[in-house]
């Protein structure tokens, strides 16, 4: 089992000018590792991370979009796997941190801790699917994952993290949304 923040540290080494959509616990860990204008943090409702990512990817096919979604979030929008696979954005990489809990809502278990997200993504029709539970293997393969033609899905089997501080006022600051758009649209 890996730790989410350790996975994100490894991932951040390979992130350049991608848009990164992250929410709740994943957002807290990601912002701790890689604070940057190209982080898209305001999704408005739990589960919509993957849908926002799809919109960003369809809107700018020349840009790469990375989604960092929690397992509870994905369960609220499982259909988005089918929608994304059908829309087939080549520039979308979709990570799911599978810690088996609704971490931001008190650490309660998800309905089925052992749900096979990678299997569901594969059946939905993602172009490439990965399943990581070993940090060394993830370190070796993360660059390869990011280079694949999308939509790419990768499940990260991680431990529930230490208690996090959720500063939602900062995460959802309207100025961050404005900065994101300026940064995303400025890239050529």
């Amino acid at each position, binding site marked *: 089992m890996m730790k989410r923040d350790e996975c994100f540290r490894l991932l951040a080494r390979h992130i350049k000018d991608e848009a990164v959509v992250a929410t709740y616990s994943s957002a807290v860990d990601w912002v701790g590792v890689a604070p940057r204008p190209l982080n898209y943090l305001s*999704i408005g*409702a739990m589960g919509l991370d993957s*849908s926002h990512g799809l*919109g960003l990817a369809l809107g700018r096919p020349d840009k790469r979009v990375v989604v960092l979604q929690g397992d509870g979030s994905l369960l609220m929008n499982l*259909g*988005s796997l*089918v929608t994304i696979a059908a829309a087939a954005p080549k520039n979308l990489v979709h990570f799911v941190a599978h810690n088996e809990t609704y971490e931001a809502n008190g650490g309660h278990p998800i309905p089925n801790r052992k749900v096979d997200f990678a299997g569901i993504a594969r059946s939905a029709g993602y172009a490439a699917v990965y399943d990581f539970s070993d940090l060394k293997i993830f370190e070796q393969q993360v660059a390869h994952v990011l280079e694949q033609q999308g939509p790419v899905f990768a499940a990260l089997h991680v431990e529930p993290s230490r208690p996090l501080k959720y500063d939602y006022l900062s995460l959802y600051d309207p100025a961050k949304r404005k900065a994101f758009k300026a940064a995303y649209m400025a890239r050529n």
Partner: protein
Amino acid sequence: MTAGAVSADLKRRELNGSAIIAAIKASGIEFVLSVPDIVTSAGLLRPIAQDSAFRLIRVCKEDECIGIASGLSYCDKRALVLIQYTGFLDSLNAIRGVAVEYTQPICMMVGLLAHDPEKPPRQSPKYGVRILEPIMDDMGIAHHLINEDAHVVKIQPAIEKAYRESLPVAFLIGRRPSVDGGSSDDEEG
């Protein structure tokens, strides 16, 4: 009334589907995000699916549309969410968070399933239709009833305003839009 007369009467009472699609195009809409709605299925969704001017994204559940449209708006791409009123109600939390609290330009075209188009939505025989406008009023969502062909002119300026001011807007489709040269879908859906 003969079958032919019934058909002619139904046709007369339909909205001009082509005019609505023309208004959507004139508004700069490039993406249509949809879960099928029986009111708009034949007159709007089917022709839109065949029209290369649009990219149709078929979604599994209506709230996905709200996230996708938001992501597209950050790319300066315009989207129309084409759904049934039941899908609007199902998506209220997403609309609340994204469209209202984040003031995103989410443009929604909402079919009024089983509504009696001779009555205003607030007096609809369908409970779910009756509560739509009061909910939108409470949420501060601009809404326009498209119940006559004369109402179609409201569409383009309302979408332009939504994107100019970054605010949501909803169009309530009270009558079935017509099908050019085709047959309508059944009412039950």
